[in-house]
């Protein structure tokens, strides 16, 4: 059954699944854990989900490595890989900065979107990329996330979203701010159509992403010690003129304050996501 209450999902934004590109080999062959300094082969570390086996620190990993870790092998199909934004404000150095990030990360934009299965459960998925201007949300990122929720609503699929972002992309000015409203509107429609959204807060989730879809999940899961907050810590310190307490704006702090459902180790998260998806499975109507 395909309820289309609002008449969206026009053909021009429809998902045309394509086989995803392979993850680009890591820039640096070795990665050292920023916490305990243990040294690892980057590829091996990414394959293991990017958690340091010695100190359990959760490293920032590329979006493609994250999807490879969470999606069932061979199940991921990518949507709109070619979609990219321009430079609507003619902002100084933006094109240069974006181009450098694209070359370095091998991604065209700050989020990867598509469909996959997790533990056999069909779901839409997005993962934001730290290598592309720290997953900042410009118009193209907003567009891909919006389209994914529209697609999910139409196909009656859940969405699992890995949020990782410094916030709105300043270089696109108010247009990037408007992506908060645009994505939010799509999340709301997906929700009103009965869709499940599991939001996973990765390190860092801040600013305009924290204040929009990241906090709009039906279930919100944070990765251990992930920095999640609205205002930047330096700004807060300057405003209140005192030092922030340890652990402020970390995942465990949000759990304590009641703003996330759980903090979950990345290595256990795949199983946890599969269980949640299974519990929300919609039987064929």
């Amino acid at each position, binding site marked *: 059954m395909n309820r289309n209450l*609002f*008449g*969206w999902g026009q053909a*021009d*934004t429809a998902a045309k699944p394509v086989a995803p590109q392979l993850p680009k080999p890591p820039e640096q062959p070795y990665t050292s854990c920023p916490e305990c300094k243990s040294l690892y082969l980057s590829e091996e570390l990414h394959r293991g989900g990017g958690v340091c086996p010695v100190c359990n620190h959760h490293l920032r990993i590329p979006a493609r490595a994250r999807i490879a870790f969470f999606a069932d092998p061979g199940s991921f199909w990518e949507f709109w890989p070619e*979609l990219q*934004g*321009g430079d*609507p*404000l003619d*902002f*100084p150095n933006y094109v240069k900065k974006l181009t450098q990030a694209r070359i370095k990360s091998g991604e065209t934009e700050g989020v990867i979107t598509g469909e996959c299965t997790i533990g056999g459960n069909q779901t839409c998925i997005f993962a934001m990329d730290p290598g592309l201007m720290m997953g900042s949300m*410009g*118009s*193209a990122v*907003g*567009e891909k996330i919006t389209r994914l929720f529209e697609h999910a609503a139409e196909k009656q699929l859940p969405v699992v979203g890995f949020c990782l972002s410094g916030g*709105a992309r*300043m270089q*696109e*000015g*108010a*247009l*990037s*701010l*408007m*992506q*908060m*409203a*645009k994505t*939010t*509107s*799509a*999340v*709301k*429609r997906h929700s*009103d159509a009965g869709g499940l959204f599991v939001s996973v807060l990765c390190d860092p989730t801040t*600013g*305009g992403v*924290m*204040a*929009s*879809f*990241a*906090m*709009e999940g039906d279930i919100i899961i944070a990765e251990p010690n992930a920095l*999640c*907050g*609205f*205002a*930047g810590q330096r*700004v*807060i310190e300057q*405003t*209140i003129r005192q030092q*922030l307490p340890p652990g*402020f*704006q970390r995942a465990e702090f949000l759990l304590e*304050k009641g*703003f996330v459902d759980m903090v979950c180790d990345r290595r256990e998260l795949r199983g946890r996501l599969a269980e949640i998806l299974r519990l929300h499975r919609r039987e064929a109507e």
Partner: protein
Amino acid sequence: MRAYEAVQAARSNRRPTAKTYIDRMIDGFIELHGDRRFGDDHAVIAGIGLLEGAPVTVIGIEKGSTTDEKIYRNFGQANPEGYRKALRQIKLAEKFHRPILCLVDTAGAYPGLGAEERGQGEAIAENMYELSTVRTPVLSIIVGEGGSGGALALAVADEVWMLEDAYYSVISPEGAASILWKDSTQAERAAECLKLTATDLKSLGVIERIIPTTDLAGAHMDALRAAVASKLREKQALDTYDLLEERYQRFRKMGGDFQ
């Protein structure tokens, strides 16, 4: 008007604040307090009254005029309870089929310890989430500063208007300058880059109407009052389905059509 002139004008002490607009445009305004969760945020004024004889819900971010007032109003920087107070009024407006007028004037949501503890991000997200489908017309006017998410939390609307000397931006020019050039004194240059004036935003499709300051003239801000009343009547005449579809499409197209 140059970008930084607009920023300075928007921050000027002599500017009418949200309260001035309410006093002059709304008859018999009844202020309603509190979020029923934590407290009453003085940075947000919310209530009901009559606009050209028709009931309306008004929500304004208020900066205050005197020093004492500014402190009382937390300089127009709302905490989560301010956004939740607004949300409660939004829900009431929906229940009683009253259109909503939002008057936005804030440097941004308050970046404080308590604000984060009480979920500033969640509060802003929740307001946008609910406003996106609230079944009554919403008109937002940026009357002074339109500071990022803290302003957008009250500007997910059917139309957004701006005073000609207001600004609306994703980040303060000072913040942008310190990130871009590690030098917050280059705010003037950053303001130009951010395209934050009413004229810029109209051409980017972010706002629908620029309000000339001359529209504020007269004991009841006559021209503005008439324009707001007529727009709300026009939106109220729409079928709910069309109203919500138009609101969705308004934001849906922002940032390009990516065909």
